[in-house]
């Protein structure tokens, strides 16, 4: 377990935000953590839709239950969070 700060690019937001996560967090947990700083703050919620996480610029998202440690993301690397 280790704290890893990431850069979070949430679709619909205007700014990249700092997102501290744990290396053992799943991507669903990462998306939920990112959402607390964005949904209802700078972006409206879209109920019923699922949030996915991918490395900025990647085509495919990470598996929802895969962890930060498994992703190989390095501190302050940027992830994109978007509604599927």
């Amino acid at each position, binding site marked *: 377990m280790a704290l890893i700060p990431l850069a979070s690019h949430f679709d*619909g937001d*205007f*700014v990249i935000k*700092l997102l501290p996560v744990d290396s053992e967090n799943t991507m669903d947990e990462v998306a939920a953590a990112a959402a607390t700083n964005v949904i209802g703050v700078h972006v409206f919620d879209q109920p019923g839709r699922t949030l996915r996480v991918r490395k900025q610029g990647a085509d495919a998202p990470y598996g929802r239950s895969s962890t930060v440690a498994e992703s190989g993301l390095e501190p302050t690397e940027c992830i994109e969070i978007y509604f599927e």
Partner: protein
Amino acid sequence: MALLERAQWYDIARSTEWTPRYVTQDELFPPELSGGEGLPDEVWSTYDEPYKVSYREYVDIQRQKDAGAYSVKAALERADLYNKADPGWISILKEHYAAVAVVEYGASFQESRFVRWSKAPGMRNMATFGMLDEIRHGQIQLYFPHEYVSKDRQFEWSHAAMFTDNWVTLGARHFFDDVMMTRDAVSTSIFANFAFETGFTNLQFIGLSGDAAKAGDFTFSKLIQSIQSDEARHAQLGTPLLQMMIENGQREKAQKMIDISFWRSYRLFTVLSGIPMDYYVPLDVREASFKEFMEEWIVTQFMRSLEDLGLSKPWYWDIFLRDISEHHHGQQLGTYSWRPTLWWNPAAGVSPPERDWLEEKYPGWNDTFGKVWDVLIDNFANDRIDRTVPGTLPVICNVSQLPIVGTPSQTLRDISLVHEGRRYHFASEVDKWIFEDDPERYRHHKNLIDRFLGGDIQPADLGGVLEYMGLGVVGPGGDDAHGLAWVETYRKQLAKAG
């Protein structure tokens, strides 16, 4: 005693030079301080300043300028502008004085370095006046806001801001240290006098002067006109140097200096000029949009000076033209959202008529930046104030020191690279290019987020960050300039809709 006309003696006096006998030329003018490597010794005496003035003339003119500005201030002191002006205008004054006054004093050191280290006698002479100009600008812009300190402690920042680690200060200080305080005399003059002063002080001082007069703040209008008349003179210091470089085969080097300084100046002024012009100036007195000012003063006039010299537009011109329609809107959302971190009270500037104006000036604004404001407004109108300030920090550019912003779902992107094991973030391809061109210059600096993650800020929470930045220490942090009065319209719309 009869005096000679200036033209009868000036050329002889300003070309006065000596040949050192006890030290070498490089000891007298060390290359790291004087610059101009590769330029032949004989060119320095050909430096021909476009603006000529004698000390007697200078003192007389400056005395008249000071008399004009101080007398307008004295005459209008009882007009109680502080209580009568729109709060958005008062925020402009707070932002301006704190970001500019002490920097002007720093500029007097910049000019004094020219006085000592420039190899061109004409430049040393002219820079003496530039040095006196900047001392005047520092003093007058500390004196004028002092009147307001007893009414509002946020005006304390006029003097204190540059001595704090507020994030806006970090951005301004990083920029001015880069272009004004840490380069040789030739480079500094091109970075600061030509690229920064010729274009961007015009934007801030002339652009805001018109808005000030219309807003009824004749004191500020007169003050910044008075300052700009000096800037317009000493900004010309860099032009003869550019000519000398171009004539001696250093066109590319000169172009790169302009390309770096132009972008760095522009990005800082999206916060210093862009936000106030499009969001803080009361709608009924706005003279033009930031984009329109940029098009007039920068795209047209500054580019004409480049063309006159045979130089080109910066390589990133297309990026720049798109950027003037978007970047400052992101910075407005950022500064407003993290308003407790500011030393002034930001105006939202998004009431229904203001949004119409923004949409007219920036077609598509409502569908992009406006959508983010919709969320903020929904929270305000439903009294969820705690949801209007994010619980985390923005990621900050390692060159501009500004939050990395962009048009939602269109251009927002983090650009990063790893240099010697450390990851750096950039708010644009241009900022990244500036870093890559000279990593040794920039790589050691830690931006606010680097300091936060590195444990320099304790406790590592919003309270710790605010205290680190001087909020609540120097003076109180920011809140909505109008006490959220503008939200009422939206609240009524909400009630009507049921």
